[in-house]
């Protein structure tokens, strides 16, 4: 392998991980760098739809055909990340008939199995669809877990010798004599697995070729290399419901528009979305009206959404791209196709390729094309095997399901665990140790948490995306601290505290967009639990100030009630603020 060219992939999203896996399987030396966790960018901020291609069957048939092809591939190679829910395109009375016909025709032209359902048939499948729907088209849409998929691709790349560096931000692209020769990265906490509080460092990594798979951030990497990559980032909001109002992907069958899809995802449903162009993928407003509008509009399709509990909202940025000079003004009209930018041909800068545009469902195909391109550059004749070789976890595990009792877990907990872990279930869950549930909402046990910690160091957000722990209805109220506790004794208390804080902050980011009704009660309970049991709102140890014990009620000191020590106490037992309280 020492003779193999070294390719550096920037970006730990689905595309980057897909490329890394493909190239590593073809025997190249691969390093992947990602500024945050895997899925940190757009991959971790999508609705998890495995496209049948139906959504593009009218407007973009080339994409539609790719989607159905890759849909079939992913069901095979990523079975533990996919739930084949099926999908519906639902027409309401006010939606145009012509479009419905076009959609149906389009699906057939693209080879997407499509079947027209009467409103009765559609409501039999999905009882909560509005009573006045006109009809529906059934297509093979599915749900896919982008976190699990990305992690599995990275794990497979690693198995084939790749080096994966997360929390390693590219701070410079190294250019020598008109050629890119590598990148300089800043390790957040030193190379390898992330461990909080370890000092960071910078590292120059030289490579024979650099692939930028940075999506909406491709322009920023381009700037470092001195080339212009005009991505058109477009934001979209997604809202997570507490339960599954539908078990099938439900699309609105109308030409285009915001808020037209509901994807059942694990225990939840994800509502999507909006499409608004933004200037900076790192800094754009997250506006409440987007959430409101989405719930209102989608309630026309599934009325019970109007009163259902939402647990959080998040925004993602699409990495849209169009070749210079196309001049599309409405972002919804920009193609979803992907573009391979060979900077040697395009800008006279050799040693670097960017991939922009595209969509999650076709990540593997994009990876294959990029890998073909890179191999061609080095005159390597190696077959792509990513469409045939299952991802780690997706080897046949049908037999395993029958032996779930062996893991000693309660019925839905065992099933959820095995679904997440796929063929890895036995190696992860059979520890011979007590295996209590750590995250109750998502049924994640200690064994699964420990497995994730083994993979990713002290980073609890990395544990979260691997396991779903803290992603359920309490949003970590009852498990963030338990997860942090699982870091000990491998990591010490200050590390665990910092990891806990970071997870907590991340949870709050999405929760704050759902603070009404039940989720507001939930957030208040979370706040009071954590402030009263962990002093999380004001911890003197962590803030460095000494505890002023005089602020506490010293309690009854004599047999006579209401004497020494209590006369100046406020009703909550502490001294009033004027006497040194900290309110």
């Amino acid at each position: 392998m020492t003779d193999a060219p070294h390719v550096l992939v920037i970006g730990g999203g689905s595309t980057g991980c897909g490329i890394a896996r493909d190239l590593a399987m073809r025997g190249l030396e691969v390093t992947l760098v990602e500024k945050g966790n895997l899925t940190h960018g757009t991959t971790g901020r999508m609705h998890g739809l495995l496209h049948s291609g139906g959504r593009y069957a009218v407007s973009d048939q080339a994409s539609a055909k790719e989607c159905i092809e890759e849909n079939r591939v992913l069901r095979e190679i990523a079975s533990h990340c996919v739930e084949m829910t099926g999908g519906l395109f639902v027409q309401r009375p006010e939606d145009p008939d012509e479009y419905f016909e076009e959609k149906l025709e389009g699906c057939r032209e693209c080879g997407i199995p499509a079947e027209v359902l009467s409103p009765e048939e559609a409501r039999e499948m999905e009882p909560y669809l509005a009573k006045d729907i006109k009809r529906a088209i059934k297509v093979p849409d599915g749900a896919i877990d982008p976190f699990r998929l990305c992690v599995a691709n990275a794990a497979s790349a690693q198995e084939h010798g790749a080096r994966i560096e997360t929390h390693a931000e590219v701070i410079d692209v190294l250019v020598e004599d008109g050629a890119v020769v590598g990148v300089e990265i800043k390790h957040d906490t030193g190379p390898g697995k992330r461990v909080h509080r370890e000092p960071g460092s910078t590292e120059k990594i030289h490579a024979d070729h650099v692939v930028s798979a940075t999506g909406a951030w491709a322009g920023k990497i381009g700037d470092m290399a001195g080339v212009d990559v005009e991505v058109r980032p477009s934001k979209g909001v997604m809202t997570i419901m507490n339960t599954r109002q539908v078990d099938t992907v439900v699309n609105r069958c109308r030409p285009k528009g915001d808020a037209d899809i509901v994807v059942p995802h694990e225990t939840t449903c994800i509502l999507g979305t909006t499409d608004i162009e933004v200037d900076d993928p790192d800094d754009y407003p997250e506006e409440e009206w987007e959430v409101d509008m989405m719930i209102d509009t989608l309630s026309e399709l599934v009325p019970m959404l109007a009163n259902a509990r939402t647990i959080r909202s998040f925004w993602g940025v699409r990495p849209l791209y169009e070749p210079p000079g196309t001049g599309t003004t409405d972002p919804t009209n920009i193609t979803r196709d992907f573009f391979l930018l060979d900077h040697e041909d395009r800008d006279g800068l050799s040693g670097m390729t960017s991939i922009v545009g595209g969509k999650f469902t076709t990540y593997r195909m994009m990876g294959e094309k990029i890998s073909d391109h890179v191999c061609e550059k080095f005159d390597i004749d190696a077959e792509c095997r990513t469409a045939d070789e299952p991802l780690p976890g997706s080897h046949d595990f049908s037999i395993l399901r029958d032996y779930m009792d062996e893991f000693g877990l309660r019925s839905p907990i065992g099933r959820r665990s095995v679904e997440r872990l796929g063929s890895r279930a036995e190696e992860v869950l059979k520890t011979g140790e007590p295996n209590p549930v750590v995250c109750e909402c998502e049924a994640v046990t200690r064994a699964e948490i420990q497995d994730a910690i083994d993979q990713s160091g002290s980073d609890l957000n990395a544990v979260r995306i691997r396991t779903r722990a803290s992603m359920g209805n309490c949003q970590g109220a009852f498990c963030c601290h338990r997860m942090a506790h699982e870091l000990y004794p491998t990591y010490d208390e200050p590390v665990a505290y910092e990891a806990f804080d970071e997870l907590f902050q991340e949870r709050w980011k999405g929760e704050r967009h759902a603070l009404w009704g039940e989720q507001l009660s939930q957030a208040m309970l979370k706040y009071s639990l954590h402030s009263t049991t962990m002093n999380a709102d004001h911890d003197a140890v962590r803030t460095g100030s000494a505890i002023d014990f005089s602020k506490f009620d010293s309690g009854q000191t004599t047999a006579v009630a209401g004497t020494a020590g209590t006369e100046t106490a406020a009703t909550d037992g502490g001294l009033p603020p004027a006497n040194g309280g900290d309110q």
Partner: protein
Amino acid sequence: MSDAESPSSFDPTAQSFEPVSVFPDAEDMDLRPGADNCYKCTACDTSCPVAEVDDEFPGPKFQGPEQWRLKRKSDEAVDDSIMSCSNCMRCDNACPSSVPLSQMHNTARAEYVDEEMDKLSREYLRNRTLANYRTLASVGSKVPRLTNFVMGNSIVQKINEKILGITAEREFPDFATETFRQWWNKRGGPKVRSEEKRVAYFHGCYSNYNTPEVGKGMVRVFESFGYEVVVPKQGCSGTPMFANGMLADAKREAGITVDNFSGLIDEGYDVIASCTSCSMSLKQEYPELFSMDGIEDLSIHTYEAMEYLRIHEDLEGAIADASVEEQAFAYHAPCHARNQGLDRQAVELFRDLDGVVIEDVGDSCSGISGTYGWKEEKYETSMKIGEEMFGHMEHSTGNVGMTECPTCSMQMEHGTGYDIKHPLQLLEEALVE
């Protein structure tokens, strides 16, 4: 009018039994709002008497909203621990967020029994037999003395335990030599007629077959206040069926009751029950679990007997003027009475009755929970739960127990050897000469 002549046809070994689809329309039974309401505070778990004594039991939060949310529509099985829930329904009361916990448990249990329990297993046959106590009782009470002799035989009890899994530790309750309904028919029905004050009595199975004195007392007390009492044909309240996941049986029985009471409600009758689990079932579980014409109406018009008098009559005044022979009671409030807000009424009322000392033995569960404590494998759990109540009973002044619930009274008697009275019996003693 006696329904004893026509016991509903039931053969637990019949092969023809097909689990019926109890919820015809998914929309009727939607529990999503229930799952949405839960913010996981665990108040339900801390109130669960089974979880308190059994570390293996995952508790009501898991059985209800958590499992509901984790389970998928199609392929995921309900965990077998649902059969360890005793259906005491204390979690309903504990929840600060209106999660319909017992409804979730009842539906999960029904699903488990329908889909996962072997219909020829000893557990299924035993549970179905216990759940359909009414059918047994209607047969057994035809020859009460013989039945009592046979069931009281320790060899028969051992056989019950070995073959059916019904604990041999407990004594079967004796069947009355004359059922309440036989007495009622012999008496010629109501002695008082009234257009304004009229109630329809839901006696349930136990006061019909085992303690008719409770029903008789109820009738005499109500008639003394000028009420017309009628006793329509009725089924089992369903309580033991819910607790054993036999919703199809419960629905059949509910149908009989709703059919026979609906017309009376239209004519101005309210429905009263002397058993707090029966009134609980008619009030809460019926409309939660079944959709039938008239079931909501029945729910709205159902009261526990003493609750009804406290609302409509000056019961406190009547009691203040009355007196009985000196006696002291250790009163236990059944969990189902607690859920209806009735847990203090007997104590509040009788402490003003001349001659009576009455003490509340605390808010613990008696532990028997209907058929639960009769199961061989649950007996020990049941007695562990009951320990607190037994202790308090022994420390109280009274040496006679008092409670509204038939099975609580079995447990109280079993744990302490005390005689147990129903509040209506004392009310009769105080108010009816």
